[in-house]
């Protein structure tokens, strides 16, 4: 049996998929392979079952955001590991931020389930066909994707919260005091106290309002 290394791997992939492999680079002894979105599932399931390659372990799956690259802003990175050959490599898929859709990997690796949910939550990448694509770590009705680069790491105070795109309806929804909705004028007599960690992912409406008096 031939020993599988980076060279063999890249040759086999190019032989099988040809021009749909956009680029292959090697850095720090690891291959970085950029592929078309269309073949990603076919590629990974082939890598998994192929007799010689046997990439049978999905190490991790995550997103990266590159706001400066036009039409390929979002990227999804798959780390694959062949336990039999002990070779690791990365697959990158670039997607436009306007429509970040990619087929789900859950049919090949069940482990991808939560990793894809996490990626969806952080980067808004929609995995089509995913059995249960919901937010996993943050509160369920968070309607933005905090790890996108346009959201700065800020203290969670109301002015800045407005900046990070919570829609007006939501804003009003949570300005409720003693079970009664408050106008902005009424709210001004209260101080805003955030007891939690100061991160953009922090559900700021857990915070409480206190009267100005103290």
């Amino acid at each position: 049996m031939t020993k599988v290394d980076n060279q063999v791997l890249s040759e086999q992939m190019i032989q099988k998929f040809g021009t749909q492999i956009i680029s292959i680079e090697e850095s720090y002894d690891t291959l970085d392979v950029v592929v078309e979105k269309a073949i990603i599932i076919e590629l990974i399931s082939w890598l998994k079952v192929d007799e010689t390659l046997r990439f049978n372990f999905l190490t991790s799956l995550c997103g990266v955001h590159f706001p400066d690259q036009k039409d390929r802003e979002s990227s999804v990175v798959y780390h694959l590991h062949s336990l039999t050959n002990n070779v690791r490599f990365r697959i990158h898929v670039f997607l436009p931020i306007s429509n970040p859709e990619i087929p789900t990997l859950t049919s090949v690796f069940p482990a991808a389930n939560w990793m894809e949910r996490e990626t969806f939550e952080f980067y808004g990448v929609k995995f089509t066909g995913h059995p249960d694509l919901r937010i996993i770590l943050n509160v369920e009705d968070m309607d933005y994707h905090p790890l996108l680069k346009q959201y700065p790491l800020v203290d969670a105070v109301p002015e800045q919260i407005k900046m990070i795109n919570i829609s007006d309806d939501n804003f009003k929804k949570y300005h409720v005091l003693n079970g009664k909705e408050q106008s902005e004028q009424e709210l001004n007599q209260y101080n805003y106290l955030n007891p939690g960690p100061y991160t953009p992912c922090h559900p700021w409406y857990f915070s409480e309002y206190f009267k100005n008096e103290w």
Partner: protein
Amino acid sequence: MNGEVIVDAQPPIGYIHRAFEKLAENRPFYQITTITDRLNYCSSPINNIGWHLTVEKLLGVKTPKRLDYLRVIIMELARISDHIICNSVVAVDTGAMTGFLYVFQWREKIYEIYEEICGARLTTNIGRIGGFERDFSQKVFDKINNLLKEIPEALKEFEKLVMRNRIFMDRTVNVGGISAERALDYGFTGPNLRAAGVDYDVRVMTPYCSYEDFDFTIPIGSNGNTYDRFCVRQEEMWQSLSIIRQALDKLPEGDFHADVPEFYLPPKEDVYNSMEGLIWHFKIVMGEINVPKGQVYQSVEGGNGELGFYLVSDGGRQPYRLHFRRPCFIYYQAYPEMIKGSMLSDAILTMSSMNVIAGELDA
């Protein structure tokens, strides 16, 4: 639930999510060590050193042997303390409180060793990028030697109490099992995967920190059930002890940090008394040193499995993107499948034997 039998389960997670990946994008490299502390807080030195190794890989730093061996000693101590917590808590969940009290004092002793090295106990923040901040004192070695002398007795006592105990075996054998194939599909790593019968260990597969110099075996189980996980962890502690002994025996003389003045903070005497020291200190703290662009993935064998760091650097003082591969987060999704059809009280045992650490689960 159907009576006491579990029909279906849904794990809701995220209660201590702290947005570490976002935080890490806004911090200089050397300040991220404190974030990694809080991933698997039962064995934070492994996380710290894993992060240091990641940055060192990006920079292409060559580490001296002595540093590697010292790191191995610390990481194996951390592994022992991690497994002590897990295994004794499994015993507690079956109703055996005594064993827990017997071995927990040894975890305390291990924390005292950390304290001697870096001043902290739980969230250790041990070492720096490039090495340790100071060499281990004689007191540290004394404490480690003491521990090596005394801990085998405690572990043996614990095993005598629990391992062949009728009640314990009735509760754990054939409970919460998973096949090797499913475990691989679900991305299991560490003791949980090895209990299912796959001998995957990052220390052997992709050695870091000169792990190839040490002679140790990878214990594996056969059914991946709670009892197997318990036994694998127990055996790993013995292996860790043997690794520490070997490291102490072979510990070479030399530097305790790599020669990278651009990234390794100089000792305070140098900062106050020499020009170079002051300049490097200033440059490192103010982040005026260029980091190479690139992407690296470095993984270490954490207490629960493969702890990976995927670092994308754009040359700035902070990482462009840092993704933690947290073993708990990945294998916890198999939990519903593992407890389906079993009793509720077994579900508790299964969870504690999987060693789900909330800090790592939610990052």
